[in-house]
């Protein structure tokens, strides 16, 4: 059930029967903005922000492993630039906690530990499906999925900012989603360039 709270009194000008303006007071009602419901919602949002940070860190771990393996200089340059942007994205992911008055530091170690173990488990399984491929572009294929996941996580955070009316969240996440959208196009394009050379000629690009 929604909560209603009466927060203040507004003033409305009306006319009396003689046509003279008089001031009356009317209650202003706000729906679902009391502290209890707001805190419940912020707790749920905090959980999602942990997921945002996890998805972002998973992407970072894999891009750090992938970049040194790429040999083609133009592709390497592009991926290094994307890697450079991840530092800013992680910073924004941490700032999200502060925007709802929570502290990301207390969950960082847990997130990093979970990320690394789950990644190794997941990516080993994923590599079993990469039939006939050799070389570093497999890392690019993984980055494609992980960037998509991080992008989606930030995009959901943006929606939560809109839903809660916290425009600082929207402002911070929109920028990241936009950059990750461009990164997604880049990663996909370069992955597509590398794939046939790797699959048909078994070259490590």
């Amino acid at each position: 059930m929604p909560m209603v709270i009466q927060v203040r009194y507004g003033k409305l000008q009306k006319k009396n029967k003689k046509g003279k303006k008089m001031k009356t007071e009317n209650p202003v009602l706000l729906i679902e903005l009391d502290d209890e419901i707001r805190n419940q919602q912020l707790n749920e949002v905090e959980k999602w922000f942990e997921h945002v940070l996890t998805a972002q860190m998973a992407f970072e771990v894999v891009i750090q492993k992938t970049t040194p393996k790429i040999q083609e200089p133009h592709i390497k340059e592009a991926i290094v630039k994307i890697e450079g942007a991840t530092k800013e994205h992680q910073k924004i992911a941490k700032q999200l906690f502060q925007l709802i008055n929570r502290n990301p530091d207390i969950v960082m170690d847990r997130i990093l530990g979970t990320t690394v173990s789950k990644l190794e488990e997941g990516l080993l399984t994923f590599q079993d499906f990469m039939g006939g491929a050799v070389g570093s572009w497999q890392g690019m294929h993984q980055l494609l999925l992980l960037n998509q996941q991080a992008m989606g996580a930030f995009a959901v955070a943006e929606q939560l900012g809109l839903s809660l009316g916290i425009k600082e969240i929207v402002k911070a996440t929109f920028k990241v989603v936009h950059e990750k959208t461009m990164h997604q196009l880049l990663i996909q394009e370069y992955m597509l360039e590398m794939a046939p050379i790797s699959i048909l000629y078994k070259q490590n690009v």
Partner: protein
Amino acid sequence: MGFADDGTLYILEGGSTWPTRPALPPRILSLTPSGELDVFAVETLGGPRGVTYHEGYIYVTCKGGYLARVVRYDVKTKKREVLIEKIPSGGWHEPGGPVFSPKDGLMYFANGSVSQNGVCLPAGFTVDLAKHPEAHDIPGDDITLTGHNVTSRNPLMPFPFLTETGAFKPFGTPAKKGEKIKGELWCSTGLWRAKPDGSEPELLAWGLRNPYGLAFNDEGELYASDNCLEEKGERAIAGDPDRIWHIRNAMTSHGSVKKPDWYGFPDMRADGVPVWDEKCKPAKGKAAEQLIENPPEWAGPPVYLEKPHSAMTKMDFSRSDDFGYRGELFVTEWGTYAPLNSPHEKDLNNGFQVVRVDVKTGTSEVFMKNKQLGAASAHQSGGIERPVDCKFHPDGRDYIF
């Protein structure tokens, strides 16, 4: 919002608009005169846009997927009935109403255009192209197309392919010169009336771009708010005013309308200027060409013209000598999207206010606005943001928005 006779206020919230986010639960809330608030019902897809009470039911128009709908709920049992679910939707604009005529007791409701400016294009459609690729406008009367198509990129393709789209066609489907399109009862840009159970629907008007607000005065005259064409994209049109139309067919008897009135969409500005005229040439975007070869007779002019992009939304007539302004139409103005829909600095603060309109003289006065024009959040000044609805209490004395 809508009041029941006992003073219970029904409030619509959530759902999604455009872009379709943030999506929130599309709920119908009830607020009793004693202050008890409850969730009366939860709708689906897009969500509720208009609500009114009539003889034991609340009637609600809802935006849909491909189809907009009119539903009603028994106030006592909360039993839901879908009365109508044949209104072409899946695009840009919204259902209007429902309202009940004080003259004939019939239900009047409307729905806006699928496309933004007459042709389904990426500039005004984006995510909807993927969600509703087959959505398109449908005329309310038989028309012949000029065959003018609009060239745009196709954002659904992996490469920048260009594509051609015609009026009254899905995105990427061109029209041919002389092609005839049959008018349909369930058109886009239409305004209908029906019996309260949804039976015997009748199309009164079409060519209404976004007839979001409907209101009857005491004499049974029906008025509709309507928003302007946009100055952007591949069919850009400058200077189209927002407007309030008098729906003259609402004064006829049920079943007597042989040919619905045409109010100008997509080829006529609200001031009667064809959109391909030099006056409509956009500062940004590609100028418009004529789409309908044999345009019907125009049902204009409107009773009131407002600044472009003011985004007039819901409205209600004052019926109280105690409150004052009896017979004047109170209209909320949601406010502009500029600079997204207009390249002109003068349009940046249009709307964001409540005006009272004298529909007899076509004049208006501002009833409520911020000290600093525009939305309160833009200036951190406090005040109103984007007013979307206003209603008078059944006793006529109190006004809410």
